[in-house]
């Protein structure tokens, strides 16, 4: 029986290794040909003209994710506090399934609603030629990361031992003081994990933002059409010729995306470890 568990564990590890090796092998040739500097810091992506600079894509992914986290985390975090501590049971029983439902909505549906409702609204409200923009993508991403943030934060908050809160209340702290001074700090690592999960979801999302971001490789600006690392791969993969530099460069973008996510996870791991030791 032990061996079965072990094998199942190996499957996951095996796939991670396989993907890593595959991405590195297929991503490196184009980088070598284009030049690491020109590839990462080049400001123009125009495959037809042989220009493969992905700086606009990197910056868009960074800004898009940052924007989504900036909007989504406060809302999600406060919702989690509400669900775990404040809300009367009946109300929580309505909100919680709604959050679960939000988590279950496929990303293409988020994109569709964004495309049909949000994008035309932005166009009219801001008097733009077209509403597809970084702003639209940020708004969609912010909603998409809400469920992960809410669910994980709530679980972390619910796991805080009751005695901590009772002790705080017994010392004369109000309910709110207790939640934010005692419960939240006690659940800190879980909440931080929720934020990272949100970042991971936002930076890895492709379908929904493909439909609302406009997909031109501009330098990021809120009201401009932009292309993320993910959508950069998605939009050009279909028609890029097999074995062409364009196709290879798309794999290189995948490699960069992969490294990004690794970096985020390692950083968080360090922060949490440091946190535990102090």
């Amino acid at each position: 029986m032990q061996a079965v568990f072990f094998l199942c564990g190996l499957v996951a590890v095996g796939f991670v290794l396989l993907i890593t090796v595959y991405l590195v092998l297929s991503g490196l040739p184009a980088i070598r040909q284009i030049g690491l500097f020109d590839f990462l810091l080049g400001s123009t992506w125009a495959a037809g003209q042989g220009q493969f600079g992905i700086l606009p894509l990197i910056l868009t992914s960074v800004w898009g994710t940052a924007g989504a986290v900036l909007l989504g985390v406060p809302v999600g975090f406060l919702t989690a506090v509400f669900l775990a501590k404040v809300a009367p049971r009946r109300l929580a029983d309505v909100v919680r399934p709604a959050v679960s439902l939000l988590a279950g909505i496929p990303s293409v549906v988020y994109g569709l609603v964004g495309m049909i409702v949000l994008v035309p609204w932005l166009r009219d409200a801001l008097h733009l030629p077209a509403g597809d923009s970084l702003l639209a993508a940020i708004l969609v991403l912010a909603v998409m990361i809400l469920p992960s943030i809410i669910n994980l934060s709530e679980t972390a908050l619910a796991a805080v031992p009751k005695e901590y809160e009772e002790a705080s209340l017994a010392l004369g702290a109000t309910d709110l003081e207790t939640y934010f001074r005692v419960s939240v700090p006690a659940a800190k690592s879980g909440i931080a994990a929720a934020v990272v999960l949100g970042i991971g979801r936002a930076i890895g999302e492709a379908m929904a933002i493909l439909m609302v971001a406009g997909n031109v490789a501009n330098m990021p600006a809120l009201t401009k059409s932009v292309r993320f690392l993910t959508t950069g791969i998605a939009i050009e993969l279909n028609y890029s010729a097999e074995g062409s530099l364009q196709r290879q460069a798309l794999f290189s973008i995948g490699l960069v995306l992969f490294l990004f996510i690794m970096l985020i996870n390692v950083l968080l791991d360090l922060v949490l470890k440091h946190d535990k030791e102090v």
Partner: protein
Amino acid sequence: MKTIYRAFAPVMAALVLCAALAACGQSAAPAAVTAPADTASENDTGDSAPVETTGTAELSGTVNTDGSTSMADVMGVLTETYREVQPGVTVNYSGTGSGSGIEGVLAGTCDIGLSSRELKDSETEQGAVAHVVALDGVAVIVNPENGVADLTVEQIADIYTGKVSNWSELGGDDAPIAVYGREDGSGTRSAFEEIVGVEGECAYTNEYGSTGDVIGNVAGNANAIGYASLSAVDDSVKAVAVGGVTPTEATVKDGSYAIQRPFLMVTKDGVELSPAAQAFLEYATSPDVAETIAAAGAVAPN
């Protein structure tokens, strides 16, 4: 700590999907590999009676075609009607893009390459031979609410390069122009940019990954201008006249509509096709299929 590792899961899942997509893309071409040489040597080939072959001799085998995604509709109807002519022949179509279709036929990974653009010199030098199957107009489309109905090629070029950025400069309402197009690598984009003379100079507002997306988004935005294969244009958008010529089947055929491109079947000079492939090529280029091609929204050349 454990929760952190749980947090890795979706990230990894996204990566798996990413790699899976990439793997699919790579395996597409080898999957189309066939052995045309075998069948060619076994059967008596070189049959030169063009239309009759399709009617008389019972053929069997598989014809692998590979290339332009713009030709999907045309290939669809041709494949379907050919099944009635030669039930024993299976025609496979994989839409990988014009460039890789031509590459495929030159490398021998498919019988017939499909291209929705004229062959490049570098390709003809390698022995690529073009057979015109149909003509396709690239329509310039605007929202039906747009008052502009006629543009010159120069005006279209100015719009796409960003020199003209408001519809009022073209006799329309005072509204900014949203310039829509396809992504780099699309056959429609390269055809459009080449014919209009704006290759690599386009200042797109938005880029889309399919013809349907372009049409849908032009239909949804009164400021928008886009381009799409004439065959795909429906009532949700308005096709503007170019230099006074409305894009229709007739104006494409007589060459008066400026923005058009050929649909080509590409073979390699000196490489003998299998009898099935030869017969299918002759069928597709014969005048008999004019109606079939028209049914797919393209224009038969003869």
